[in-house]
């Protein structure tokens, strides 16, 4: 993918579902907010990433061009 996973921190309220669905790219900080690995999403994780983006209850996850 030419895209990376980003979280909009103004929308994210720390549900933590992303970390459960995508532990390869997302861990939670001590307050429950996601720490997302930057960089192009590996092909093998593409489906899981798309699922996390769709399932985030706050719609805070986004796939954006790598910056």
């Amino acid at each position, binding site marked *: 993918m030419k895209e990376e996973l980003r979280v*909009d*921190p*103004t*929308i*994210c*309220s*720390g549900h933590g579902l992303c970390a459960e669905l995508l532990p390869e790219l997302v861990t939670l*900080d*001590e*307050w*429950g*907010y996601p*720490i997302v690995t930057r960089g192009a999403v590996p092909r093998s994780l593409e489906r899981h990433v798309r699922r996390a983006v769709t399932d985030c209850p706050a719609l805070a996850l986004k796939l*954006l061009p790598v*910056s």
Partner: protein
Amino acid sequence: MTYGTTVPHSAPFPGPQQGHTTRTGPAGSGSQSPGDLPRLLPVHGAVPVDLRTHLSRDAAPPYFGHSGKLIPVLKAAGLTGRGGAAFPVHRKLQAVAEARTQPVVIGNGAEGEPASDKDKSLLWISPHLVLDGLQLAAEAVGSQAVALYVHRNARLQERLRAAVAERSAARIDVVPVEIIDAPPRFLAGEESALASRISGQPAMPRFKPPRVFERGVVGRPTLVHNVETLAHIALIARYGPAWFRAAGTPKEPGSMLCTLHQADGQRDVVETELGTPLRDLLQLDGTQAVLSGGYHGAWLPAAEAARMTLSNEHLQAAGAFVGAGVLVGLPADRCGIAETARVARYLALESAGQCGPCFNGLPRIAAALDEVASPRPDPRAVTDMIRWAGLVEGRGACHHPDGTTRFVRSALHVFRDEIANHAEGRCVDPAREPFLPLPADSALDEADWN
């Protein structure tokens, strides 16, 4: 000393001291010949320049008659933004000029930094340079929608409305200019917070992308320039790139406004060249440390500052930066940790509260600093603070967490001897009279962001 309000109501800027100087070169014995400074401020004193004086000194704004023509002139001049980020001005203009929908142009005079007075002073004394710059920038990008976003001060805003009306009557301005109130928040001048406010929402930063030059005020491509940047544009358009480059250094050309806080309490706005030695701006005797870049900047030991110039070339190498020209000399008999803790608490209160890492991390960092500022502090406070700093950096919608941790980390380094002092129950200044300026009132609820 303390300041009761961010801006005094009964005196012109910058504050209780009538401290506008137009110092053009070294404050010491002086060896430099800086040429034609001051450029932005009048030659004598702080008397505001009215339209007639402005026109007789600099003539009417030199419209190019075509959009885009100003941009190569600014590129040749090498002007960078004077709001703190030092981004090349011509590139911002180019990006907005290329937009396919009608752009908006905003002059940013919010100046939310409590230690900075230069924008308010410039707007009070030389509004017409700023207003010229707005018109020229609007012409360059083909904009019909222009506003000036101004720090909340009724007298200043009234004066600016009068200046705009006068220019309109004299048919100097092509595009009408709206004066828009900026709430008195530290983050009110952040580009995306500004765009939100002008779009009718609270002045809170937004996630990027998109950046405001792509989608800003009501979704339109928005050009945002600090008011001092606009004043430089107004002069470069008249006198050209070579004139601009006659001051400053080849890599960092031109002059800039600085807000200087001397160790003896004097507070001045001065115009100086980039590359001026810091020891020519601040009286460093009796000073232990210099804060460069305001409350998102960094502390430097005084001995190190004495060897540096006002340039990103020097300051960035030391972890600091020029920023918007705030320079503070901390007296030797003050506690740098206590001062940093006071400001860190202010910065935590000024979080927009939108992003989990920021609104969780900044208050904890501030509390840990309070702990370190007390006698025999819990030794975990420093390690906790450093962990939290690592957790907040890069994880907000704006650079508030990053700027705060830069400031705090530099304090932990520069004031490490004082930290060791505190561990043994001693402090250089047990009296703790405040030195760094902070506003009296903080945001108490959401309405304060409007």
